[in-house]
């Protein structure tokens, strides 16, 4: 036998085996059943900063220890990548909007539960125009935004208020990292983006906010999402996360030295300061109180919102190309009703853990 072939063959097989192993190692550990160490991914956003702060200040460890488990909290610089990693099975939980949860992990067959409803955007996402003072002025323009994101959804909702649709504008996909520079060029006369970019752009001359998420309150919801199977097998994971979250909420909402210090630290971690962070919180409806979050999670309005969100996703082909209708992915609500396919429920809203926090049962 040719020795070259042998050497080459052996190492190539080994390499291929390594690749195959690497690709499958991250496979969802569906049958993992009971386990003791968990990973949560989060990214920089006003409503998710508490996770980083809680991890840095030992609150995560404190609650994990109480339930005899281990929770690793990992910050991602790229929001979408954190959701993709969660969907691929590398994480047990992630911070995401309800729209992206439905569109990415749920469509991808990863049954996900909205464990905690952290907040909804109440002005944090906005449509901003040059030389214009109402939504009508956007018609016919190039609108720069991150396509298929909540910005895109906000634009669709803004146009719907006029009875218009996306056909009446031209959407240009523009990276959020370059949005501020983009706004300063003459080509760009309309953008949809989120905070802190909104605040930055509005501070420039000739920038008018004509529509924002406070015009569609409660429709852009920020969640902490966990894998449903992992949660079912390990309720301790959910309890430890809920415990951590509401202890942190209690500290940060308080008008005390400790509260201000916590908010200042979260502000600093998101590239601003206490004043900047407080301003972002002002345009966010934070659910500091678990009872309030649970009430929102059990409300009928949530169903209306999910209907509108899933229609948007379906219209943009994001529920899978073969999807015959928006019913293809089932969404279960806190009262047990299911919207869509009951045999393919992949997004679940529950108030169980928020209720436990409200009842002091953690």
């Amino acid at each position, binding site marked *: 036998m040719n020795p070259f072939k042998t050497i080459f063959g052996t190492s190539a097989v080994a390499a291929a085996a390594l690749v195959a192993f690497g690709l*499958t190692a*991250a496979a969802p550990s569906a049958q993992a059943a009971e386990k003791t160490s968990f990973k949560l991914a989060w990214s920089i956003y006003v409503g998710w900063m508490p996770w980083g702060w809680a991890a840095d200040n030992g609150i995560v460890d404190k609650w994990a220890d109480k339930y005899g488990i281990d929770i690793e909290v990992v910050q991602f610089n790229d929001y979408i990548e954190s959701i*993709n990693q969660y969907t691929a099975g590398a994480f047990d939980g992630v911070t995401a909007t309800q729209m992206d949860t439905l569109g990415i992990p749920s469509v991808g*067959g990863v049954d996900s539960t909205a464990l905690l409803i952290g907040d909804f955007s109440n002005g944090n996402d906005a449509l901003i125009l040059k030389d214009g003072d109402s939504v009508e002025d956007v018609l016919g323009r190039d609108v720069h935004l991150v396509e298929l994101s909540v910005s895109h959804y906000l634009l669709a909702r803004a146009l719907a208020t006029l009875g218009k649709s996306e056909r009446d504008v031209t959407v240009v*996909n523009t990276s959020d990292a370059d949005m501020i520079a983009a706004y300063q*060029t003459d080509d760009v006369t309309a953008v949809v983006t989120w905070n802190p970019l909104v605040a930055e752009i509005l501070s420039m001359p000739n920038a008018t906010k004509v529509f924002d998420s406070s015009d569609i309150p409660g429709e852009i919801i920020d969640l902490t999402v966990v894998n449903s199977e992992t949660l079912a097998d390990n309720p301790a994971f959910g309890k430890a996360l809920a415990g951590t979250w509401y202890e942190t909420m209690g500290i940060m909402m308080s008008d005390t030295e400790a509260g201000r210090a916590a908010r200042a630290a979260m502000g600093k971690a998101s590239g601003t300061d206490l004043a900047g962070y407080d301003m972002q919180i002002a345009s966010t409806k934070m659910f500091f109180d678990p009872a309030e979050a649970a009430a929102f999670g059990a409300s009928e309005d949530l169903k209306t919102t999910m209907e509108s969100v899933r229609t948007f996703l379906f219209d943009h082909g994001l529920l899978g190309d073969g999807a015959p209708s928006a019913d293809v992915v089932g969404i279960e609500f806190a009262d047990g009703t299911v919207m869509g396919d009951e045999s393919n429920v992949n997004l679940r809203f529950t108030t169980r853990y928020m209720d436990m926090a409200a009842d002091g049962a953690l």
Partner: protein
Amino acid sequence: MTRLVNRHPDRPTRLLLAMLPFALLIAAYAIGSDMRLAENPNDKLLPSFTALGDAITRMAFTPDKRTGDYLLWVDTVASLTRIAGGVAIATVFGLLVGVSVGLLPYARATLGGFLSAVAMIPPLAILPILFILFGLGELSKFVLVFAGIGPFIARDIAMRVAELPTEQIVKAQTLGASTWQICTRVVLPQMWPRLMDSVRLSLGAAWLFLIAAEAVASQDGLGYRIFLVRRYLAMDVILPYVAWITLLAFSFDWLLRVLQARLFPWFAPEGASR
């Protein structure tokens, strides 16, 4: 016994060996994909070959539901126009500046250091400046590709010109050649194949900058599509696009190599597949 360095595979073996790594990669993919799909039939990370085939049919051979366009072709035309434009400007610039700097002492004194410095600026780091200067339209995409590879080609050509034996330049002068004649009759004929080499080497970088440009602000293009569907982890679309980009890039490289061998057979006499 023949030493390993002297043992050459025969033609069929060579072909087989060349295909082996590709076959192994595909096999590894198939195994990984099967394992993940067995756990979750909707897995998006490593879609099955059927799913990839469906995505190709959908993107390349079915008109898009919303626009009626064949997306893959629209994206390909947009991207090829941009990369061709950017590479063309960079090549002309590289040749003009490179030959001047390599041949004329005054040009070298003025531009040599500047060119070396400019070639070191990572264009992606100064994106906001490029946008404000050139807008967000097509122009900025040409400019980004140009800024990424133009200085590289210019430096390369300047070095290749400087490498020409001084004897050639002196000899031409004893025959009465002017600077212009030295340039057109001595330097340029020897630079054409080297310019092709330089362009070939920068094509990889050109694609990188093109895709970066399309990720920033765009309505079409291969890079645009990849970044757009990445938002929904649509690997069934991304993987065929990546394969397509690789094929396109490989074809250009091959085309330039064949052209070079045809037009300048005296260059690279070994005919070695480099």
